[in-house]
């Protein structure tokens, strides 16, 4: 028996498994972060209620599966547009008048909104933990002996598709160009004929839709309860800073990076400190490259 070979092989296996797990999970984190970063890029606000948008997406997928039997991955086409509309409404009726009052006030306003949404969900849906079990997803696939959970793999593929769609939207369409222009400089954009207020509303809707879509994709792999937003939002912050506030590719890279750091950190360093590693990395990036690891963010 080639003990050395087996030893090396299992070490490789552990490494490969860690990397695969990290990338898959990280891609979903990334999707959540993209929504937050777009909103910041265009409107310069950090939406503390973003985690609750994800949570609402998760609940949407859960109910449409449990009550109507719709596969969650298919239900993205229902919930993303629905939450897009919802996001626009929130902007139009709630946020629009608060934003002029300053960044701090807007931030706290979204904090209040976050409390409100999480507790409304708690009240109506009760705090029971729920998971969504897909019959075809019970055991993972095992290519090359690496466990790849099926729902996570599907989510990964769909996340890529959605992100590609976003890229096309931002680069090829008029709306996308307007969004990018507003992100660069709202005053100039206005001068060029862009209806900045409308773009703000659309952007917020888009951010919300992305969050909800991420939630829908996540729910078969995670668990669901009304206050799950709290944990997700903190991870989101770390990611958008790593990637650069306002940068979409940065958020994606940041998400995958965080997933990898947590995964490898847990396996090779210490499980107890894996979150700390993320935060320390976060601080280091803030200090030495505040525009993000990839240098594309704006301050």
């Amino acid at each position, binding site marked *: 028996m080639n003990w050395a070979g087996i030893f090396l092989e299992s070490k490789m296996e552990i490494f490969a498994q860690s990397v695969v797990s990290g990338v898959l999970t990280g891609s979903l984190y990334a999707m959540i972060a993209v929504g937050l970063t777009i909103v910041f890029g265009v409107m310069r606000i950090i939406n503390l209620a973003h985690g609750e948008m994800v949570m609402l997406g998760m609940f949407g997928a859960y109910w449409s599966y449990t009550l109507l039997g719709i596969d969650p991955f298919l239900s993205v086409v229902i919930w993303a547009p629905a939450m897009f509309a919802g996001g626009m409404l929130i902007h139009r009726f709630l946020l629009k008048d608060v934003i002029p009052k300053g960044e*701090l006030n807007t931030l706290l306003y979204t904090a209040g909104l976050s409390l409100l949404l999480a507790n409304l969900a708690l009240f109506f849906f009760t705090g029971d933990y729920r998971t969504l079990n897909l019959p075809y997803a019970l055991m993972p696939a095992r290519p090359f002996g690496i466990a790849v959970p099926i729902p996570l793999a599907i989510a990964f593929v769909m996340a890529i598709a959605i992100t590609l769609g976003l890229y096309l939207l931002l680069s090829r369409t008029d709306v996308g160009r307007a969004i990018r222009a507003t992100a660069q400089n709202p005053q100039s954009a206005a001068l060029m004929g862009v209806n900045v207020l409308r773009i703000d509303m659309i952007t917020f809707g888009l951010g919300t839709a992305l969050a909800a879509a991420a939630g829908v994709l996540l729910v078969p792999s995670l668990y669901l309860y009304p206050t799950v937003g709290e944990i997700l939002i903190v991870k989101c912050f770390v990611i958008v800073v790593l990637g650069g506030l306002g940068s979409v590719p940065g958020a994606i890279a940041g998400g995958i990076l965080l997933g990898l750091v947590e995964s490898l950190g847990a396996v090779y360093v210490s499980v107890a400190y894996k979150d700390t590693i993320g935060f320390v990395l976060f601080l280091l990036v*803030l200090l030495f490259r505040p525009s993000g690891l990839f240098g594309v963010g704006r301050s």
Partner: protein
Amino acid sequence: MNRLLVVAGIAFLLVAPLLTSNAFFQHLMIMVLFWTLLGASWNLLGGFAGQVSFGHATFLGIGAYTTMLFYLSLQLSPWLGMLAGGVFGALFALPIGLICFRLRGPYFSLATLAVAEIARLVALNWEQLTAGPVGLLITTLPQVSIAGHAINWESKIPFCYLAAGLTLFAMGLTYAVSRSRLGAYLTAVREDIDSAEAIGIDTVRTRVIALALSAFVVGLAGSFYALYFRYIDPDAVFAISLSVEMVFIAVVGGLATTAGPIVGAIVLVTISEIFRDRFAAGHLIFYGLFMMLVIRYLPEGIWGRLRLLLRLTRG
């Protein structure tokens, strides 16, 4: 008129704990004072200097753990322990400030959040020092006498006065700073940091001083927390929710005002109690709603708006 209010306020603080023998009301009073204390110290940095910190709980935790550890392992008197709590808070503020003040705006805020989380995780995992998640418990407070009378720690009255004393100190400090040159520098930093630099103000030093003062007071508050609640664990004293609540208090009351935090604390503590009583399930829904309404319609804070109205009516 202002001076009259202040004297009346102090007189009330001196007399109020004795007016009622209802321990619950004394507790409410202590909580209002405690939150005023926290709001006022956050205000020093956040309101006056415009540096929005979401991690002030770091100093609360440092103060609490310092006092607890000194008391439990060295039997240090609580008075000294409190002072130590404040001092350690201020000491930690120095490196934290030097690190975080390189950043502006939202980056600064997020950095402070990260610092608080790291502090929490360290307290949670460094068990040899902090006992980790098990936490630290005080079973008996030491015999302390003032003017020949031993303090009865079982009663809330000594805590009322202690809290009142700390709060008056914090407010006095805020007032003194607002009237001093430091205060002027802080305002300059808040309004336009680049111009402030341009006219020769050392903005880093100014901000670090503000942070150190703020951290000192929050450290004292942390020590008070440890002595009053007698039990601390990392999640209780380093929580993000504590940091956010401090910001709420300062903002709801009125940023950059001396009296704002009092109003903020009174309103928020009372509201919490009422909501919890009236709407047992889902009271946080109304709390969130309340926050949103205040920020939308009273962005300058309740006291801020009152001040405006008073000025307008006075013509």
